[in-house]
């Protein structure tokens, strides 16, 4: 019997011709009127329980005051990461007006996709952002000088430790010795040797591009006194601070003080690890499960808490070009990031609004919650992910090299990381 290969080839050729004729017929956006258009809008917010509660109340309050410009709020659809979901929505042309979960790492790519509105186009756009967030707003400007995101909230990453585990290991739970790399390693050893926990710390050892934000990046930020992964188009991590950070984590893995196997669950709340690197958002999930304390991330020499830099783990708000009523979206954006709503956000979620006046505007809250006061202070010493094109690919390149050289100790770590730095340099200028 003859195989229908010939038919397949003919079919493919015909389809190729058809698709070639239909491809690439893009038209420029005609959205001048959209900036001032008003009417109903849709927003997405995170599916974090506390953020949902905050989102529901702000939408209800707005809708009561603005019945003609109704806001419909939905949780961001499920996906492996918000970035994938948002990227797909941009391409499909069905992104909502505002997304309260836009990762700064993805902004340059979303911008290149034509998916984001430059907020500086609004008359009071740039001034509103710069007045609200102060100097830290500059980290979020795009290469063309525009604001394709409103800096919204930070979760300055710190080390959480389990006081009960520390006590069981014979360590002082109120004054843990975790300031320097050596301290951190010897404390971890004491915990593991005592059997109080299986590991000192257990950052996810998996290969997702964003995992380096919770092992390498905060410590590199602290050790380098505020370096981003890329500065002026060049990878920065092959400097003294980067190498010291690598050596620290390498020791943690080779001495089996950090786990190499992905953990199904939360190793910190399960008591498998004595410490975790996380931001204030994690407090709600630790409530009632762990008696926790926090310290800044360690450095080689030890840095005073008020001078310790860390990763900001910020999430911002993006306005998407699929939005027809951008005038309403901008007004709602300002309403939801007003001093009053930021205060409610802080109280309801424990996350720090990216406001220049955060410490003074909510002094009462910080007096009542001293741990949050230290995080608010640290929010002034945070490092964001670089606002660059190919960000996901750059972080994936870094993660692959990190996984190979540091977590699994394959090959020469300096060579592997240098190769990653070279590739990142090329991606940053691609």
């Amino acid at each position, binding site marked *: 019997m003859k195989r229908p290969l010939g038919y397949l080839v003919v079919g493919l050729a015909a389809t190729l011709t058809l698709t070639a004729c239909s491809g690439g017929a893009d038209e420029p956006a005609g959205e001048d009127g959209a900036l001032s258009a008003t009417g109903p809008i849709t927003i997405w917010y995170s599916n974090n329980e506390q953020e949902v509660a905050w989102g529901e109340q702000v939408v209800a309050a707005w809708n009561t005051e603005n019945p003609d410009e109704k806001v419909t709020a939905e949780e961001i659809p499920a996906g492996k990461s918000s970035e994938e979901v948002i990227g797909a929505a941009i391409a499909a042309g069905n992104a909502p007006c505002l997304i309260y979960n836009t990762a700064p790492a993805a902004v340059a790519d979303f911008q290149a*996709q034509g998916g984001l509105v430059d907020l500086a186009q609004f008359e009071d756009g740039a001034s509103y952002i710069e007045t609200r967030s102060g100097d830290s707003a500059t980290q979020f400007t795009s290469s063309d000088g525009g604001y394709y995101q409103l800096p919204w909230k930070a979760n300055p990453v710190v080390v959480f430790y389990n006081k009960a585990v520390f006590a069981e290991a014979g360590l002082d739970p109120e004054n843990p010795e975790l300031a320097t790399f050596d301290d951190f390693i010897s404390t971890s050893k004491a915990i593991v040797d005592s059997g109080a926990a299986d590991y000192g710390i257990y950052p996810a050892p998996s290969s997702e591009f964003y995992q380096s934000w919770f092992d390498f990046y905060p410590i590199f930020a602290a050790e380098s006194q505020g370096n981003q992964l890329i500065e002026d188009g060049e990878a920065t991590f092959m400097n003294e601070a980067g190498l010291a950070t690598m050596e620290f984590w390498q020791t943690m893995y080779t001495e089996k003080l950090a786990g190499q196997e992905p953990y199904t669950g939360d190793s910190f709340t399960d008591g498998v690890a004595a410490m975790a690197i996380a931001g204030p958002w994690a407090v709600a999930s630790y409530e009632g499960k762990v008696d926790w304390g926090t310290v800044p991330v360690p450095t080689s020499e030890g840095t005073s808490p008020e001078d310790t830099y860390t990763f900001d783990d910020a999430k911002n708000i993006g306005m998407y070009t699929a939005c027809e009523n951008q005038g309403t979206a901008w007004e709602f954006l300002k309403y939801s990031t007003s001093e009053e709503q930021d205060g409610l956000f802080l109280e309801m979620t424990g996350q720090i609004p990216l406001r220049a006046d955060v410490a003074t505007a909510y002094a009462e809250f910080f007096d009542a919650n001293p741990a949050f006061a230290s995080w608010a202070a640290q929010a002034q010493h945070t490092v964001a992910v670089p606002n660059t094109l190919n960000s996901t*690919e750059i972080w994936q390149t870094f993660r692959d090299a990190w996984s190979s050289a540091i977590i699994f100790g394959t090959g020469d770590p300096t060579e592997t990381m240098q190769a990653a730095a070279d590739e990142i340099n090329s991606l940053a200028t691609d």
Partner: protein
Amino acid sequence: MLLSAPYALFLVAVFVYPLGLGAWIAFHKYSFAAPNAQVDRPFVGFDNFARVLQDPDVIASFKHVGIFLVINVPLTIALALLLATALNSAIKGVTFFRVAYYVPYVTASVATVTVWLFMFSENGVVNSLLGDLAPDPSWLTNSTWAMPMIALYVTWKQLGFFILLYLAALQNVSKELYEAAKTDGANWWQSFRAVTWPGVLPATSLVAMLAIITGANLFTEPYLLTNGGGPNGASTTPVLLIYQQAIQQNHPDRASAIGIFLVIGVLLLAWISRRMTEED
């Protein structure tokens, strides 16, 4: 012609058009963009193909899937045929065994993967039994063992379906042939070689082809079992890379080039397998 038109249209819509579009994308510098965005998508010839061929991760992913197929396909054929032959004979509790083999196939991968994660984790039941003989790092985080473990998992998970195919084929093997073989003094093995194997050869061809096609398109299992192709990329597959390049990194052009290589590879393997197992 008229009666087959709906299916032909369906085939064009869900298979020919996407495949053609994928091939078109592979020959252009293409990225996903908002519908009204002005994006330049120039023709780049074979650039995307050359780029993916120079990418060591892509080459490694094809090697990984090769390892998978070398373990999975023969093991699937051997075990499915063996168990189907056993189930085809009059043994006690045949219904129980049929259900037992079929249950993993109809159970959601997420559920069965979780069981395997617990079984083969560092402190899992398998390592507890093996003691000092357990590999370090443990099975699914060990770069040597990760891909064979995925192959074993998939073999176990899909075995029920292939057993059913063989059972159906065995029902069609004439009993007279077995009786004739017995009369000629053939033992079990001789009877299997002379009667059973030729009798189920068309089914073997189908099993091999299905196992190759599903195996080459491996995604869910490394995505869940080894956390997206870990450890350290030791269980990445071409489809995982397609997902990573197209969805995570917005390079559908390179992803399409990988896809084209995969389609060609699968067609080639399926053709070889058919040549090896089909009757003259």
